[in-house]
């Protein structure tokens, strides 16, 4: 589908093709694929794409970073690349330099809040923090009763209770119990938890859209190989129409996610328009994940239900990503409230402004 149009994305795509082949990873029982992949990504500076050079990063544009995430979604990459990128981005908002190694962000959902105490320590619990177990550091957004601060925390200084998401990747509970951060600085004016979550939503939307592109690709290919009743199953109209619906869902996810990413790239602030774009992307991509994954499995029959087949790497991750940074129900309620508060006659002008 969308071929990469920049050198950063091409680099990422090449690394994934070489070192994140789904078949190889799926067969690898002891996780030996992980280190070479992460090393290559680091050597290319990709995890710190969104960190300016003077904060230790590679200073790529937001747009370039977003295309890396699309690509990561197409390969259903299971290392904390998106998380480290988001963490670096968050730290850079307060001009905190990024350390080396894997990072993640907390909080990762709308219901959790971290408090910055008067003595400079952090208190609170963040659930569903992606890859916390594998992260050396956390970028934390915390409130001190007056305003927001951004903190860099050594992962060893807080408690992490490990848990796995649908895709089998870590999604952990992190508890801050008077945890002393390595650094903490005020967040820029206007930056709040929604800003962080919406950025996370756009990242996950791009990943879901990428995974759907791959589901479509794999399913189309399989339907042109598998024979039943002496015909390729791709020749049955019911199968064709299911795949056409899958294409529609992949297309909707792709359009919503790339539009939201583009709106953040060009935004001067996280206003109602960016809110619409990012929330809508998360909602629509999550809906597409449900419908698309179901069709991809249906087309594959029993083989796609096996752990040996690669399909689940895409379907289960796409379904798992729905939950991160606020699920679609949460954002639908928030979007619905915003639309209602603006009033009926302001709905069309808002939609048409995009």
């Amino acid at each position, binding site marked *: 589908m969308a071929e990469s149009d920049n050198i950063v994305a091409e680099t990422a795509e090449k690394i994934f093709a070489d070192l994140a082949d789904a078949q190889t990873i799926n067969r690898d029982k002891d996780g030996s694929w992980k280190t070479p992949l992460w090393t290559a990504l680091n050597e290319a500076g990709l995890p710190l794409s969104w960190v300016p050079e003077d904060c230790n990063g590679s200073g790529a544009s937001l747009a370039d970073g977003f295309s890396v995430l699309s690509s990561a979604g197409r390969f259903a990459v299971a290392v904390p690349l998106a998380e480290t990128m988001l963490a670096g981005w968050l730290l850079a908002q307060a001009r905190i330099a990024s350390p080396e190694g894997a990072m993640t962000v907390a909080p990762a959902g709308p219901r959790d809040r971290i408090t910055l105490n008067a003595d400079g320590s952090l208190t609170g619990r963040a659930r569903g923090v992606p890859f916390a177990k594998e992260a050396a550091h956390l970028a934390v957004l915390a409130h001190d009763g007056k305003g927001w601060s951004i903190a860099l925390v050594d992962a060893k200084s807080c408690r992490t209770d490990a848990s796995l998401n649908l895709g089998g990747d870590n999604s952990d509970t992190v508890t801050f119990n008077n945890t002393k951060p390595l650094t903490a600085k005020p967040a820029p004016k206007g930056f709040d938890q929604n800003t962080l979550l919406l950025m996370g939503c756009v990242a996950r939307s791009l990943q879901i859209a990428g995974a759907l592109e791959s589901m479509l690709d794999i399913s189309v290919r399989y339907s042109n190989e598998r024979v039943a009743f002496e015909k390729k199953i791709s020749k049955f109209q019911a199968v064709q129409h299911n795949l056409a619906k899958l294409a529609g869902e992949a297309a909707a996810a792709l359009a919503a996610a790339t539009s939201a990413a583009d709106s953040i790239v060009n935004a001067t602030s996280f206003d109602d328009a960016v809110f619409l774009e990012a*929330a809508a992307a998360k909602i629509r991509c999550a809906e597409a994940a449900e419908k698309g994954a179901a069709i991809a499995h249906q087309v594959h029959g029993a083989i796609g239900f096996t752990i040996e087949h690669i399909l689940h790497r895409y379907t289960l991750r796409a379904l798992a990503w729905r939950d991160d940074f606020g699920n679609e129900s949460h954002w639908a309620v928030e979007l619905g409230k915003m639309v209602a508060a603006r009033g009926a006659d302001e709905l069309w002008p808002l939609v*048409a402004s995009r």
Partner: protein
Amino acid sequence: MTAALRFDPIRLPPECVKLREEVRAFLAEEIAAGTFDPHQPKREDIDAREFSRRVGAKGWLGMTWPKKYGGHERTFLERYVVTEEMRVANAPTRRFFVADRQSGPVLIKYAPEHIKMEILPRICRGEICFAIGMSEPNSGSDLFAAKTKATKTDGGWLINGTKIWTSSAHIADYMIAIFRTSPSTKENRRHGLTQFLVKMKQPGIQVNPIGQITGQFEFNEVVFTDHFIPDDHVLGEIDGAWKQATSELAYERSGPERFLETYYVLTELVRAVGKNPDTRSAEGIGRLVAQLHTMRRMSVSVAGMLQAGKEPVVEAAIVKDIGTIWEQALPHRVRDLAAFVDADVSNHETLDKQLDFATKTAPKLTIQGGTTEVLRGIIARGLGLR
């Protein structure tokens, strides 16, 4: 990747902002003057003849066509803005919509120069209405089963047979139709049909209105009996209509009219739930708005690709597939969400009436202009499945 779907995040260019304001101001004036009621989507009683001319005078018909034909050489994206604003306002566009979207572009491509010079400027002025004569009693999805016959005669053709479901034929000045000029061949069952420009309101053409389940009379049976069409009204290649029928469909399929047909019930629902909706209403509205926004971004993307000279046939079919299914389900979703709305809210009656009409309209949306099944066949072909 097998599939090459593209939906780049195309934005409407700055000139569209001013244009949109102009269109909104114009529509507000028309509403104030009583030309139409934006809350009333059922509008068969309105004779919008004068409205059409005023839209033409604004320069909003034939917007993308060459100036020498009365067009304005503006972009598809500007046309997009005009189309969506008219649709959302429930403006009475039926008289000019088909000509502007479809018939004009076909004439530009296939009509002889003197016909273009005669007819296109009149479309641009909003003076004439077009119909499309494809379907027949025994030929719907399967266009190539059409039987209505064109027989060669001196200086032209004699037409005999029946077209059906022809929208606006009762008010149309012209129809672009396909007729059978030769039998199909063993090798190519699509062979033998030719596209013609038909002047309506002439001897040998009888238009019989057909009532619809909405109570409206929008489409018709059109019976041809030895109706004469001159040679210069042949559009394109004789027996070769099949080569011409597909290219313009991208324009027809992916516009804002493919998901905004029942939009008004969403606006009215938002009004009915008020400023502080309960969680259920808020979530329902949020999802619908997310879906709407996504479709519009897809549709604008296709318009941008058309502007760039591409032919996004599969992308356009996807927009129509998803869009029509959405606008078809919308009245039912809005009905669900309105179930607990306070019966005394001021717009309850308006919402009920609109829901009634939208629910009756809904079934046609996935049939007209190519059924869902036909669209999915096109998408499947694009995916390399057939």
